[in-house]
């Protein structure tokens, strides 16, 4: 009889990792630079996945404030690609419409939307949609004139000519 939960199996399948190998050595949590902003530390998150506690994991702030710095992945003695597991958990959370940090998710969505339109990132478009979705209109407003002064904001987006190839990639990604 297998004691592995369905949640653990699904996380393993989608990430290609073996989360059950975590033996709670704390190395990931000791090296993680953003633990101060997390509700569960990385090793605790791995334990919750092992235990099949899907709700707590997918509702956690941890999966969104992880900066993807890859320190945990580099140092894990059991070679679990923890950052990859967290990528998978974010995707599962999005599918279930759970985002404890909605603004972080809104940023990623606005970023990819812009890339789908032009093939390259248009910062103005990204900020427009991000602000509209999050209603954080005043954030970073001081930056706009400073960037313009330094000719670092462009009103004419740089674009990919063979944009059809980009559209096809996005279609296949089902976004």
């Amino acid at each position, binding site marked *: 009889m297998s004691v592995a939960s369905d949640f653990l199996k699904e996380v393993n399948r989608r990430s290609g990792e073996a989360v059950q190998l975590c033996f709670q050595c704390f190395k990931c949590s000791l090296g993680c630079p953003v633990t101060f902003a997390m509700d569960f530390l990385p090793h605790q998150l791995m334990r919750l996945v092992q235990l099949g506690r899907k709700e707590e994991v997918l509702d956690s702030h941890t999966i969104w404030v992880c900066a993807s710095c*890859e320190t945990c992945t580099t140092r894990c003695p059991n070679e679990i690609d923890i950052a990859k597991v967290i*990528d998978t958990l974010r995707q599962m959370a999005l599918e279930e419409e759970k985002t404890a940090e909605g603004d972080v998710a809104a940023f990623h969505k606005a970023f990819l939307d812009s890339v789908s339109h032009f093939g390259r990132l248009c910062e103005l478009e990204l900020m427009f949609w991000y602000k509209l979705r999050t209603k954080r209109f005043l954030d970073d407003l001081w930056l706009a004139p*400073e960037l313009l002064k330094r000719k670092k904001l462009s009103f004419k987006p740089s674009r990919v000519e063979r944009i059809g190839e980009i559209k096809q990639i996005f279609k296949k990604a089902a976004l």
Partner: protein
Amino acid sequence: MNKMRVAYYPGCTLETTAKEFDITSRSVCAQLGIELVEIPDWNCCGASSAHETNDYLAIALPARNLVVAEQELGLNVVIPCAACFNRLKAAEKALLSRTYTEFDYEGKIKVYDLLSFLAQPEYVKRLKKKVVTPLKELKAVAYYGCLLCRPPEVTDHPQPENPMEMETVLKAIGVECLPWSYKTDCCGASLVVARPDIVHQLVKRLYDRALEVGAECIVTACPLCHANLDMRQKEINEKYHKHYYLPIFYFTELMALAMGIEGTETWAKGHFVDPRPLLEERKYL
């Protein structure tokens, strides 16, 4: 001098917020006899937004650039941006494992980050001969950030916990590189938009640790690190009631300066923390 041709992937930020990195990468390479051929019709690598939210985009977006570089140019790829480098390397590994058969990629070309490429002995030798203004007495810490080195399974970096390429390059132009323990610590990257509080805390710690060892500037190889350390210094000063003055350089800017390449004003003016007072004090300008 043997002329070397390589494919060049600038990436999105090098056209906007990291223009200085693009300008100085191009001028420095030209002086060292490296011809950069821009990948035709390149597209965004997807950065962290793709790999954090969609596995297919995370590989397919950067993969398209590798296929174009191999098929249309047949040249090794050199990438200044650490984040783009990391994504193109991730795509390279995925394509070589043949999990994405829709991309026709044989793996005949190699993918380098610009820093490691320029730290190769032959280019360091050339660089030393090109120095006209050695940056003596400039005390700096080399700041690599995350994505040039980690994870080594992706980057193929031999020393992910203690990379030395930037020190090799900076020492060749006379900079005094101070040892510190935070060279590969994270700056918070794209969290700066949605959670600036996290980035402020991470970056403040980097300033404090750099100052603690006596640095008067921080040298980066990543547009995201540069943006967070340079653009946010004013905010961090206001928030924590501090008076940090730490110019943040791209390593290519200091190379251009030492090599006597014109245009220092142009890139210096692009910085939020004006580096000119420091450079004038040291009589490099």
